[in-house]
């Protein structure tokens, strides 16, 4: 601890009035920083004298406009942020970045704005990605919907035909099938029930035109024997006269234009 000297008491007085020169202030503050009960007591006592000086100034009422301006500036700056609205304070001011503390605040403000900008940019990128994904999903759903509508139109088209296939013999009484056929587009829908084929066998669907039968493929039913089959580009060889189902060896008839097994269902188009 630097030793207390009597002239420190005089420095206390100058310090209370804020009139120590730079060298004196540095020395005195260093002395205080090391702890000096005498000087601390002296400062407490003399600071009261400085307040008496302040109160000795002739008294005036503060202009009412200042109160309004101060409170407006505070309100506009927000209670917590303590950022004061410069537009409210329409008085000439020194740049507040002129002090090191001001520069630090300014730097902090710049960083805060930059961080806010980065956060906002990242959020924008994130939202853009989400929007792109959502649009892709919507496009996908739209394609599915278009496809469903396209197939639904097979049944609702003006020239659409409905053919109910009937079992051709007593050996397949559980079979039921119906074909919706749109000649304009060459598309057809098969709705089948009871198409659970015996072991090592497959049911095969045929379109029969004037040129003869053409395989439309093996019907793969689910475990419940039901199947819905979409058929395209059928009957390129001419108008379909009938649809038929044959019971084939696994994989279907080796000849796409001739059933190798028995025909178990048949449905003729009217007219």
């Amino acid at each position, binding site marked *: 601890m630097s030793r207390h000297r009597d002239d420190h008491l005089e420095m206390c007085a100058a310090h209370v009035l804020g009139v120590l020169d730079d060298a004196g202030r540095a020395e005195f503050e260093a002395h205080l920083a090391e702890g000096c009960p005498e000087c601390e007591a002296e400062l407490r006592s003399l600071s009261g004298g400085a307040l008496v000086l302040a109160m000795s100034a*002739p*008294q005036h009422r503060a202009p009412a*406009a200042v109160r309004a301006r101060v409170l407006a500036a505070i309100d506009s700056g927000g209670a*917590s942020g303590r950022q004061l609205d410069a537009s409210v304070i329409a008085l000439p001011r020194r740049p507040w970045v002129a002090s090191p503390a001001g520069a630090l605040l300014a730097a902090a403000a710049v960083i805060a704005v930059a961080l806010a900008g980065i956060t906002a940019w990242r959020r924008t990128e994130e939202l853009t990605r989400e929007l792109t994904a959502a649009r892709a999903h919507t496009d996908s759903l739209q394609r599915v919907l278009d496809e469903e509508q396209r197939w639904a139109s097979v049944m609702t088209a003006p020239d659409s035909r409905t053919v109910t296939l009937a079992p051709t013999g007593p050996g397949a009484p559980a079979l039921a099938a119906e074909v919706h056929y749109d000649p304009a587009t060459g598309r057809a829908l098969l709705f089948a029930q009871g198409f659970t084929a015996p072991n090592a066998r497959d049911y095969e669907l045929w379109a029969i035109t004037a040129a003869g039968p053409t395989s439309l493929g093996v019907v793969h039913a689910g475990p419940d024997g039901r199947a819905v089959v979409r058929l395209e580009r059928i009957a390129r060889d001419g108008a379909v006269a009938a649809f038929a189902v044959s019971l084939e060896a696994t994989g279907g008839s080796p000849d796409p234009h001739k059933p190798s097994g028995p025909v178990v269902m048949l449905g003729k188009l009217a007219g």
Partner: protein
Amino acid sequence: MNETERDRRCWERVAGGDPTALAELYDRYADLLYSLALRIVGSASDAEEVLQDSWLQAWRSARSYDPARGAVGAWLVTIARSRALDRLRGLGSRRRAETAASVEAQAEPPPPAADPATGYARRVLRNDVATAITALAPQQRRVVEMAYFEGLSQSEIATQLGAPLGTVKSWTRQALMKLRERVPVEALP
């Protein structure tokens, strides 16, 4: 609860961001701060700006106030004086001379002061302050007023008064001690 404690609690609300608390303190201290600023800068328009800047500075730095280092009122006075002296220095030496002259001319400044202290205790305090100031020896009063209201260093005061620096230092301390002794500390802001 005395005024010091009341101010301290009010300031805790200010530090917490409560503008109504600042308004309360403003109503209590604005006249004192404005009068001090006017005494230092000498013109109403400058004093008005000092007053505004002081309250905004107080609001911005509310959390830096340390109750252990003095009462809220004393802290506000320190801010206002500091801002006023900054402004005075910014005005330049020519204006400073005019300011000093104009202050001297303001023996009874119109409009009449509306005393911020309306209660009996404050009127007593005002009387105590006036008595304490007039009781100072002329040199003692001069040196502390030059230091406090004009921001002059003790060397500058010594030069202006043509007195030894050591003597100025001595007068300064004696003056502050007398002022402090004649006014009860509990009555001060």
